[in-house]
């Protein structure tokens, strides 16, 4: 009797293994879409813990309930969950709208990645990779000298083509762009970190890319039915950002990077575009009928004979001729409060949520145009310049994108994103 039971168990176990093998592939997809930004498997802590061998540390039941709603488990007082939450800076893991089956697939994938010696899951994973990326396997001829240890092939591949000429971002309809193939990338609402985007309004963007020795240029297009270039308490503007790992030795989280890997970000805003095109978007520009009695200290600017009243004084005038003590952001040298902006973009670095920092050396250029419900934007990014805060790579790297729809009150973390895309530089 005992023997029969033993045999049955073996049979079940074998069957289970094959089920795991099948589901790992589906799990990989879910993992990359929902977990990748905060968790690695065997590459250390990102935002959340390393999930290697998590299947050995916790029961499946616990994992399912935690993945579905981590805060419910934390609030129930579960000691492991509470410790986990406290150990990870109390950043709550967002609830995942996944079925039991999907979660089990993810666990199968984690298990397969945790035990590379197990041949069955490994085959499945390789198969998946082989199916989804046939072209890149053949087109990437030179092997990268210092390839990242944690390089994972991304679902999408973008090719950047060499160009001899200067890319002038203002020439959005330049001839050469029409010869470059465009890649269409689906965008997702950001729901991993607070504050989240609850109503997505953009479906995809298309991107083309060319490069020169120290520059990579992108031509981006996306549909946006309303041109939003306003700034006020309930007015938000359209925005775009492109992000690179600082180096390809470590691939950081595509969500603003992490402590182990910084990211280089180039950020464009429609209000900055407006500032550069038409001059600083001052109060009297946005509210032409405004009226104000007096700005104390600025009385000398008034001239009744020329009909110059308080509301006619401009921020540029103040910055040019006197202390900005009454403009606290400008006085504190906040990069957001720059009155005389030269480019509609800024370059920044980040190493995690809330760490975005404007760079000292600003070299990126951009220009955009909104026409017939569509933004067309060209960004030129300085790379491989020797500056340690600009992206550095040899013949391939990764890029991620973000879009904000001002008409839908997108701002900060309330954005659309595209996770890492492999960027290949064609000869």
């Amino acid at each position: 009797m005992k023997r029969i039971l033993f045999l049955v168990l073996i049979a079940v176990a074998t069957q289970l293994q094959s089920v795991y093998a099948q589901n790992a592939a589906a799990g990989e997809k879910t993992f990359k879409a929902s977990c990748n930004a905060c968790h690695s498997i065997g590459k250390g802590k990102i935002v959340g813990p390393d999930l290697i061998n998590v299947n050995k540390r916790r029961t499946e039941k616990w994992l399912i309930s935690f993945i579905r709603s981590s805060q419910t488990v934390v609030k129930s007082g579960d000691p492991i969950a509470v410790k986990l939450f406290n150990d990870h800076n109390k950043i709550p893991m967002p609830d995942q709208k996944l079925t039991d089956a999907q979660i089990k697939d993810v666990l199968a994938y984690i298990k397969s990645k945790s035990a590379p010696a197990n041949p069955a899951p490994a085959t499945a994973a390789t198969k998946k990779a082989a199916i989804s990326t046939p072209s890149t396997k053949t087109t990437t001829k030179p092997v990268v000298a210092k390839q990242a240890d944690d390089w994972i092939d991304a679902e999408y591949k973008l090719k950047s083509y060499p160009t001899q000429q200067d890319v002038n971002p203002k020439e959005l309809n330049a001839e050469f762009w029409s010869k470059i193939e465009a890649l269409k990338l689906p965008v997702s609402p950001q729901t991993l970190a607070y504050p989240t985007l609850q109503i997505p309004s953009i479906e995809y963007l298309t991107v083309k890319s060319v490069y020169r020795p120290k520059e990579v240029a992108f031509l981006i297009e996306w549909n946006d039915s309303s041109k939003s270039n306003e700034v006020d308490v309930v007015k938000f503007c359209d925005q775009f950002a492109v992000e690179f790992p600082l180096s390809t030795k470590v691939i950081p989280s595509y969500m603003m990077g992490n402590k182990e890997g910084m990211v280089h970000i180039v950020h464009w805003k429609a209000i900055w575009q407006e500032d550069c095109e038409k001059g600083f978007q001052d109060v009297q520009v946005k509210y032409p009928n405004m009226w104000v009695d007096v700005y104390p200290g600025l009385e000398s600017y008034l001239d009744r004979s020329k009909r110059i009243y308080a509301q006619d004084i401009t921020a540029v005038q103040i910055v040019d001729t006197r202390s900005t003590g009454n403009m606290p952001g400008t006085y504190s040298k906040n990069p957001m409060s720059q009155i005389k902006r030269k480019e509609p973009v800024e370059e920044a670095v980040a190493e995690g949520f809330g760490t975005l920092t404007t760079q000292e050396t600003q070299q990126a250029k951009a220009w955009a145009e909104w026409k017939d419900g569509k933004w067309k934007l060209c960004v030129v990014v300085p790379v491989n310049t020797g500056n340690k805060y600009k992206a550095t790579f040899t013949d391939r790297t990764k890029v991620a994108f973000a879009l904000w729809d001002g008409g839908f009150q997108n701002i900060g973390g309330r954005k659309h994103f595209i996770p890492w895309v492999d960027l290949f530089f064609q000869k």
Partner: protein
Amino acid sequence: MAKVKNWQLNREMEYPYEEKKPKKQITYVFDTNKCIACQTCTVACKTTWTSGKGEETIFFNNVETKPYGGYPQKWDVNTLKELNGQEWGKDGVYKGKTIFESETGERVTGWRPPERNYAFPNIGEDEVLGNMEKGAFFNGIHDIWMFYLARICNHCSYPGCLAACPRKAIYKREEDGIVLIDQSRCRGYKECVKACPYKKTFFNMVTRVSEKCIGCYPLIEQGEQPRCVTSCIGKIRLQGFMEDAKEPRRDSPFDMIVRIKKIALPLYPQFGTQPNVYYVPPVHVPKDFLIQMFGPNVEEAITQYRNMKDDKELLAAFMLFGNTHRIIHSYKAEENYAVGYNEIGDEIVRVPYVEPVLNRPHWDAQFQTFRHNTP
């Protein structure tokens, strides 16, 4: 989310950060019964801090007429609506949800005012609730009512603005509990504008970052009370410090007014931010309105207030209002005077309970003339 103790709700509540008390907490008491809405505080604040370009709609301090006034318009009713009803238990425990106990998928429940609501700073001024009936007369109780509510940032113990800032650009000072927005770090996401239930963070459209009341910290650091307090002609305000972690001190005017006699109450405690501006509720306003606004202890507070003339210890604390620009740390009710002391125990103010009256004769011998009451 951490569990923190909110003494105004008599219960624990959720907050994104651990409970951490400042060394002392900036505290204000406003007596609504004395306010005449002259807006001297508003102007004092405006000319001191927010007279620059882009600050046209920023009022760190404002005085509005309740029930209809509000800046930004309808700030309170809209936030209350978001909370979806608030109930107090018979034991004084708040049973409803705070702004941090959201079920909306947001970290803080908030309402973002449309810009039009910033367009009329003094809307509803002096408007009363309802109309006077023909032939109505005053018989001791008003048929219709309104009152003035002076408002500043509450420098909350659990600030909504701080909780919502994704950049941690907002901080609460350890030395005095003043809540500030780092002007060099803010990126103008306006999450704080949405999250602050009192709508006391404002967006500056020229610098494109947010600003809020700074509690006149340069004055506080020199032991002086803020501009809005010292400029008040009705002497309705007093600013000092309170430490709610310690046993209440009978020689602290704030502990006496807020914690011992419980005569001044927090504004909308149900928001859950544990605000630090305490209001003596208006005595002539219907109780249900006041309970919604100041919590369940309104009636006791009003009874105490009416009896204050016979309670010298409490009266002395109120005599200190508006009579010195220095910050009072302790006080004493002497036979004929209320006496205030600074941090090191030096006397800084001495106020008589009854102003001396001088009767001057009709004939002025010095100037050889008659004195007249000339209007």
